[in-house]
């Protein structure tokens, strides 16, 4: 289902179409907002507000321009708004606001989408493989620690991680060069 036909259905008040739109963009929009304002909880609130506003204003939704662009633009504006509000309280935030330019913002969108893609692929790994891989990569745990926690050998941990890398390499091959954008950004 393309975003545009979704937009059409949303316009007529179809909540399942709205849910579909939410599910396909919410996560990446949150990652993006976090890059702009530096706080994930606030980012989630901001993106939720954008979706609620979009639904409330669905009648005036312009179905000719991509909904995704609208979402990113709205989130970006809401983030700037948020940063303006907290500026009074924190010099750090105002620094972030002035530091991000338009082109930075575009890079951040690409990075957010890449991170979302990588995360999606990690979620598709077989259970044991995924759990072990996430403990290493997300929680920063030592392989020995992982082995002890799960009651398996270090060797099994290493084998499962190498299996994860092998699967990811295959399923993310189309994004391989682009992934450099993530690692160089840090």
């Amino acid at each position, binding site marked *: 289902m393309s975003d545009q036909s979704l937009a059409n259905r949303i316009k007529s008040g179809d909540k399942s179409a709205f849910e579909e739109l939410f599910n396909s963009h919410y*996560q990446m929009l949150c990652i993006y907002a*976090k890059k702009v304002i530096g706080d994930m909880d606030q980012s989630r609130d901001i993106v939720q507000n954008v979706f609620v506003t979009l639904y409330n204003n669905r009648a005036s939704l312009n179905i000719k321009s991509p909904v995704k662009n609208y979402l990113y633009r709205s989130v970006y504006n809401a983030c700037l708004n948020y940063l303006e509000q907290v500026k009074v309280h924190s010099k750090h935030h105002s620094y972030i606001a002035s530091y991000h330019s338009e082109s930075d913002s575009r890079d951040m969108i690409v990075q957010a989408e890449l991170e979302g893609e990588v995360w999606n692929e990690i979620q598709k790994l077989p259970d044991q493989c995924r759990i072990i891989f996430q403990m290493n990569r997300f929680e*920063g745990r030592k*392989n020995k620690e992982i082995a002890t926690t799960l009651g398996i050998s270090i060797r099994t941990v290493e084998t499962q991680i*190498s299996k994860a890398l092998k699967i990811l*390499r295959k399923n993310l091959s189309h994004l391989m060069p682009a992934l450099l954008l*993530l690692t160089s950004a840090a």
Partner: protein
Amino acid sequence: MSNSLNEYTDQELLVRYLSKETSALENRRVEHWLNANDRNKEEFNKLKLLWEASSHAKEASLIDVKSDWQKVKLRIDDEPKVRSLSAAKQQGSVFTRLMRVAAVITFLVVAYLTWPVLSGLNPAEMTTITALSDTSAVVLADGSKVLLNKNSRLVYPEKFSGNTRTVTLEGEAFFDVVKDPSKPFLIKSGRAITEVVGTSFSVNAGIKNKVLVTVVTGKVLLYNEMNQEGKLAIVPGEQGQLKNESQLLKKVNDDLNFLSWKTGVLTFQNTPINKVIKDLSTHYDRPLKLGSSALKTCTLTATFDKQPLENVLDELQLVLPIQILMQDKKIILTGTGCQ
């Protein structure tokens, strides 16, 4: 000593290297391998790229899409305000102590009820708490405590005014109710009402067209909203049912695992394998199936205390003549049966 890395060992060594857990000797082996030819180097660079990109993806795991969708959905539905789950969860430790509370009453309530069930209540004063992927705890205005199981929802007022303390439940929950004989505590689930005068108990909703109330200790009344004459009193060891909104009946509770979602403990005593896989499916939220009807002759006696499912399946294979097959997310038990 060979300088080339064996096909079967180099992958693990590379993982160790990427994890920065190699010894000096291993480092030299990897570097030697890297410098051997460009293909090795290219191969390694790809792995390193994935390795680093994966840690960046960590951010996404902080986002609970399902629970956030529920928040958005409630806002566009213009339904009662939602209390943040994270705030409620901080009260979770209260419930570990409830394990020792003497008066425990548990009942399961149907999910046939349509949401929201707010008749006679002013929605503006109501709070909704929804537990999705995890249990969630909340303390009510009178000090009563509720632990909601996942996939459950509780609607309660910010303040209890009137002659009763009424909440609405969809799903399963454990209650610790503060005693107040002048103000009975009522849990509404569709037409079913469970009345508690003051004790602790647990509620579970999820069976179609059926309300189940299983009492451990204490005493509750179960009845149909439309017929308040016929109240069923349920005492420890008993299970009351309200079927299809009309039939009230009572039986002895023979389910050892009705509180397992809260305790994490699963107990089986000579339990038929059918019931075992049903309990495991519910507890771990994974589909388990019997691959052959011959297995129905098997029974299991075992206790699993907060063990991961993989672990439990390994033990099953040890004590029963069965093999476990994994098909996608489905777990299938096969074998020639027990004598």
